[in-house]
């Protein structure tokens, strides 16, 4: 754009669209090494405004290192990073007004109540959200006057999210927000994160739960050993297998794989040895295979226990990529 200033009227629209498209987070060739260990090996990231972005990967893949570089806690070894238009390493208080952070692990001040903790943090910001509204947003109304030390683990984590929200940030970092939660606490946390989307926040979420990324994120990047191995919308990623479906069932006692119709044995391929008669096969033509399989079973009056047809989930893709 630098050389284009003479082009008069033609420049305006392109400048405007460039401003609109300016990503909230942009990283190019981001690298972090600790001595000989390369924790992050040159990754590119782009997160647009109002997007919920999930950074997915197994433990030790480099998720927290990356997020802490974006948050300004860690210095990178190489690469370019801008977050809300600034380099997080030298961004000051003004930048911090616009960013909310939930660390992977953080205790609450146990002596203060939920309301007091939020009042304390609200005082750090120029234009905070209302405390009562923030409490409602994370569903802690009934515990508002309880001391943080007496809250359950799930409630403490929701207070943690509330503390990050009370400054009314544009961008929110959530580092493994539901690790260690029981299923119902996770569902509640998901609802809170979904409501952030409605508030128009940009959310950068790290997680090692596939279903969490699938349920919450507009876009997912999968990181393995410090490198991004896949990126896209969750459904897009799930479809990466080329539309392959999996069919699984259990062979009745006394029946071996060799007895199955040829279409089915072909689809099973090399894996002839089947523990406990459990069969899983992958196919591009689930209808034809199912027809052959069920026709064969009906003709012999056999039951196929646990018969199941599944489209590949993000989980399958993830497991395939991380193994």
């Amino acid at each position, binding site marked *: 754009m630098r050389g284009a200033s003479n082009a008069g009227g033609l420049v305006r629209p392109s400048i405007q669209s460039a401003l609109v498209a300016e990503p909230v987070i942009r990283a190019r060739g981001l690298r972090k090494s600790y001595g000989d260990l390369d924790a992050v090996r040159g990754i590119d990231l782009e997160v647009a405004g109002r997007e919920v972005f999930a950074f997915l990967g197994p433990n030790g893949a480099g998720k927290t290192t990356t997020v802490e570089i974006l948050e300004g*806690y860690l210095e990178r070894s190489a690469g370019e990073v801008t977050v809300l238009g600034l380099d997080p390493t030298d961004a000051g208080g*003004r930048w911090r*007004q616009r960013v909310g952070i939930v660390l992977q692990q953080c205790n609450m*001040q146990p002596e203060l109540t939920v309301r007091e903790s939020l009042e304390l943090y609200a005082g*750090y910001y120029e234009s905070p959200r209302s405390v009562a509204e923030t409490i409602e947003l994370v569903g802690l109304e009934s515990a508002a006057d309880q001391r943080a030390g007496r809250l359950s683990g799930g409630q403490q984590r929701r207070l943690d999210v509330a503390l990050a929200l009370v*400054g009314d940030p544009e961008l929110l970092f959530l580092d493994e927000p539901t690790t260690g939660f029981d299923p119902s606490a996770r569902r509640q946390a998901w609802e809170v994160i979904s409501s952030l989307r409605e508030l128009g926040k940009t959310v950068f979420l790290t997680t090692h739960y596939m279903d969490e990324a699938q349920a919450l994120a507009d876009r997912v990047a999968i990181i393995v050993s410090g490198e991004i191995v896949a990126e896209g919308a969750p459904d897009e990623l799930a479809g990466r297998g080329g539309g392959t479906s999996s069919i699984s069932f259990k062979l009745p006692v006394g029946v071996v794989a060799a007895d199955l119709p040829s279409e089915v044995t072909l689809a099973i391929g090399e894996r002839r040895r089947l523990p406990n008669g459990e069969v899983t096969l992958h196919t591009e033509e689930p209808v034809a295979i199912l027809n052959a399989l069920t026709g064969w079973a009906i003709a012999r009056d056999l039951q196929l226990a646990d018969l199941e047809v599944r489209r590949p989930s993000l989980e399958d893709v993830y497991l395939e990529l991380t193994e």
Partner: protein
Amino acid sequence: MSGLALALHQFRYDQKVFWRNPASVFFTVMFPVMFLVLLGVIVNGQTIHAQGGIDATTYFVPAVITLALVSATMVNLAMNLTVLREGGVLKRLRGTPLPGWVFIAGRIGNAFVTALLMFVLVTALGRILFDVPVPWGRLAPLLVVLAVASASFCAMGVALTTIIPSREAAPAITNLVVFPLYFLSGVFIPESEIPSGVLHVADVFPIRHLFDALLAGFDPSTASAGSELGQLVVVAAWGVLGFVVALRRFRWEPRR
């Protein structure tokens, strides 16, 4: 909000945190009061043959103020900042717009107020229970002693966190630092019972000088009368050392 207004905001909540924390209240408030009452009952009416002879209860009032002041400042800060650091609370604060110095200033303000309150409480209890005269005439130098000592011991408390590796180690290391010095400095045992060689060792450290400064304020007939402010030089020197260490080595993030 300006820095000062923010520090006041932080201070208000730090006061709540302090008074609701049973360990802080016990070690800073209850323990010195209990100590004063028990010692006073035991030694009441006796004379300590130190510094030209001094009434035993008059000796122990400034001793207990020494204990309370060090506890309100150095011990509290060292323990609580370590717990906050290892729990990730300090790291999280660094992620907010709150400047780091404002947070520390709030905590130090809290320590000052608590130390002053303990001075008033212990002096009043000494007067009510054991007839120890309130040192009205020496109040101005005593307040200077309180202010300089609080600042110095706060700096030492922040510095002490840099050698404490975990929250579990905080009480052990902190008590290991202060308790021997209480004994060696004549806070728990009258200094007339302590060999002079030991007192010379204690003279290197700040607790004995703080105690001597307070004692001089409480009993103008002692040998060190009028030398309150002179004693402060050693205390302040330790404070400056603590300040430099704190400035260079204080960590906001937990050890991994």
